[in-house]
């Protein structure tokens, strides 16, 4: 790709960007949120039409205007949101659109054989007749990869492929990437996890604010120099320092005891969970994907129906039947799925911010919009949210800024207990640190934070205490984080 340029109303998303992928090479495409990675991928996939610039494959210029053009040019894109039809089988999904003729009978046997061949090529075993909706996220990803291969793709682009995978599944993904590489397929790999970049990538291309920064072989880079390239400045630490001393016990310790959850049961995934989060500390709830972490948090927040168990805040039992109750009791939750659950994407950032806080801005039934805007503006400055104005649609923001809008909405609520589910998923390094800093700041103010994270470095860097779940039960608690290692957590998580 040469000199690719793309503008949207109000945003110059890509400014003269270059990208080179060689056969059998894994290229990491890096940049902070809003740097233009997603736009670049969409240009490559035919979803956006570039304003200028050329795309060449094997030295031949290609005109890519539609997704079909992109497929024909041998480019396979695996977006974060998969393009699979849940009610159809694996085989049908792979060969969707490749049926031999409009009215001829689909050769099921032949397709099944070809699907197996494709799975063999990437070294996995998957039943071609399984329904896609019954598959795990990792398996669905494999189906997407097989689909790309079935179209004879020579370049495969993966947009944050590891974001929703467990550590074990990520290893599987790496094996597949290696396999594809050895078959001469060029791969563009987008990820925020630097460990992964160093593990599997050969070259790195960095974008910043829609412009091309640099391309280098991975051997010439260190973790720190890479971060510098991405954020354009030096970063001192990945995590802020913990408070020097934990909040000491006081007379009203009993009253200020924070959130206590006892014998929580609900749904298939939460069997019996008890723990507490004191004011002034960050407690990490960790475990493998599917251990019931998010599910437990949703029960506390009233998002799902609780079958048994009590929730108390500062010694007082709460009756939580809905998120509305939880919010009124002083508990709020930042969901892991910001786009699906955290924000109303087609409404303005201001409306999203105001949603749980309207009672504060309402006088005699009417919303005082100036008051609301002023409150929002204060957070825009405090959290350095990049918005064009309060009327900007939430859907047009980058991941980090979306998370900041969600944060602003809950900060205004001034809740006592804040649940962060994967607080930095899909967020770039610079914004991550800001969010960590804010979490620290909140606990210093005496709030209680429950954090759910799949990233063990994050758990070790941020938590004051770690609670490990396995199959819906608490299998261990690590009081002293200094003694915790990734291995000791994993040990508890698989027990």
């Amino acid at each position: 790709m040469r000199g690719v340029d793309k503008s949207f109303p109000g945003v110059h998303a890509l400014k003269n960007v270059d990208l080179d992928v060689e056969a059998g090479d894994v290229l990491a495409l890096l940049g902070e949120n809003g740097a233009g990675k997603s736009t670049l991928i969409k240009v490559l996939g035919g979803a956006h039409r570039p304003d200028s610039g050329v795309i060449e494959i094997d030295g031949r210029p290609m005109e890519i205007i539609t997704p079909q053009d992109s497929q024909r040019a041998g480019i396979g894109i695996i977006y974060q949101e998969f393009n699979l039809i849940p009610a159809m089988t694996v085989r049908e999904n792979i060969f969707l659109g490749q049926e031999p003729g409009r009215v001829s009978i689909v050769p099921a046997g032949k397709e099944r054989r070809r699907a197996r061949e494709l799975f063999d090529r990437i070294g996995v075993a998957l039943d071609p007749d399984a329904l896609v909706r019954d598959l795990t996220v990792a398996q669905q990803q494999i189906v997407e990869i097989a689909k790309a291969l079935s179209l004879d793709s020579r370049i495969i682009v993966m947009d944050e492929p590891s974001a929703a995978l467990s550590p074990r599944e990520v290893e599987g993904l790496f094996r597949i990437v290696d396999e594809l590489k050895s078959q001469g397929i060029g791969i563009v790999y987008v990820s925020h996890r630097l460990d992964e970049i160093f593990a599997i990538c050969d070259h790195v291309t960095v974008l910043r604010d829609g412009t091309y920064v640099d391309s280098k072989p991975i051997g010439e880079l260190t973790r720190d120099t890479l971060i510098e390239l991405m954020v354009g400045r030096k970063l001192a630490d990945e995590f802020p320092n913990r408070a020097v001393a934990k909040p000491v016990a006081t007379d009203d310790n009993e009253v200020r005891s924070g959130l206590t959850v006892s014998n929580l049961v609900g749904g298939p995934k939460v069997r019996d969970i008890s723990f507490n989060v004191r004011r002034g500390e960050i407690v990490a709830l960790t475990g493998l994907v599917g251990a019931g972490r998010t599910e437990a948090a949703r029960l506390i927040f009233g998002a799902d129906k609780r079958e048994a168990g009590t929730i108390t805040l500062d010694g007082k039992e709460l009756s939580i039947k809905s998120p509305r109750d939880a919010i009124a009791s002083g508990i709020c939750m930042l969901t892991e799925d910001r786009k699906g659950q955290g924000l109303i994407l087609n409404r303005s950032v201001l409306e999203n911010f105001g949603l749980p806080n309207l009672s504060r801005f309402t006088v005699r039934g009417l919303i005082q919009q100036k008051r609301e805007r002023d409150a929002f503006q204060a957070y825009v400055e405090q959290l350095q949210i990049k918005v064009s104005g309060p009327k900007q649609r939430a859907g047009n923001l980058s991941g980090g800024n979306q998370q900041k809008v969600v944060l602003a909405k809950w900060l205004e609520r001034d809740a006592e207990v804040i649940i962060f589910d994967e607080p930095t998923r899909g967020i770039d390094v610079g914004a991550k640190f800001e969010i960590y800093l804010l979490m620290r700041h909140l606990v210093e103010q005496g709030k209680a934070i429950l954090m759910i994270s799949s990233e063990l470095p994050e758990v070790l860097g941020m938590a004051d205490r770690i609670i490990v779940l396995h199959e819906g039960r608490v299998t261990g608690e690590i009081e002293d984080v200094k003694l915790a290692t990734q291995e000791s957590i994993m040990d508890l998580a698989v027990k």
Partner: protein
Amino acid sequence: MKRFIADNGSIIVLLALCAYYSVVTLGEQHPNTPAAGQEVAAAILKDSSEQVTVVVITRDTVQDRAYSEAVRAAIETGGGTVLAVVNGAPTDARLALEQVGGAFSRVDAIATNHSASGWGPLKPQKLKTTADKFPGISGIKVFKPQSYTWPSFLTRENLVNVINQNAVIAIIAIGMTLVIITAGIDLSVGSLLALCGVTTAVAIQQMAGGADAGTIGLLGACLIGTGVCTLCGIFNGVMVTWFRVPAFVVTLAMMMVARGLALIVAVQYQSALLGGGTEGTPEAVRIEAAAFGWLGNGATFGIPNPILLMLALYVLAHITMTKTSVGRYIYAVGGNPEAARLSGVPVFGVLILVYAICGAMAGLAGIVDASRFEGGRPNAGEMYELQVIAAVVVGGTSLAGGEGRIFGTLVGAMIIAVIQNGLNMAGVASYEQKCVFGGLILAAVLLDRFKRK
């Protein structure tokens, strides 16, 4: 500029339509109002220095009566004498002229209007032959209001008429806009309109005292009618939320049930009127209380009451949607119900409220309809649901939910009304109009798609 057009596209379309029809319907206008009557009287008084004697001749219509009355009053205040006022047919005019021509020695003027001035007895040569027999009118002159060139579309009378005819649709469209913003649909509004009309009519006849019903009795009956529709709306909402039945299915069922109920009530009422022995017919339930017609046929400050009610409801709805928590909640639920719920929005409550409001609006429209026709018509409002949905969609509300503006819907309803009016003026048959409307709705949605890109 581009943004302005995108944001106000429907208003621009409406204005363009109005401009188009104004040009197309440009023609001679013949005023026939009391004001025109006063001008004619002034002209007569000015023409003759002595005490003037006048005969007023017009057709026998409500407007012509008002016109001739204005002429009479103005002549008399100006010191003239009105010898006769004729509201009738050309023969009446001839007889009156012969009479005054025989009885009085001098008749100065005939005051008439455009339609009557073309009658035979008022033609100059005919007047001359009459004057030969009845010399009293030999010096008579004919006066009528001055005509001028103006689009007949753009007359106050026509515009008020267009809006008034569509006030019912526009009122229902308020509720439908809210429902569609929550990504729902309500097909039952047309039937609810009829149910409310019939229920209110029966309540007035049997509970409020029929012809003797007082204001409180009438209001109570209206409350019963809208109450029934609101309950139906709440039922729709409960089905959509707690029982997770798709809105399309629930309201389709309600559309049939409510229509059936309206017919049952009407038939039973007619049967009871006939003594209960025979089966009734699905005719309108006549409302005998004369005061009830005020809402549908009356006017305040010269503006028909349905228009005033419609405007008041639109202002109220606009404030609710833009300035209150409920409005924000409705948009939020339409945009992303799960995110709204996790932000503390009572999603079920909001949805039930929205369907209840939609039912209530259909009920209010039913009362206007019943008042206009002075009876509850069990067959009223058929296919209204589709007209209303068309108005909402043309007004720019997205069927996908989360977006839409209340006044957009008003503009949408008016666009449809203006096109209909224009087609009627152009003499297009109603079957052909259906094709035009189908195309219009499609065009509106396509326009919306392009705008989004």
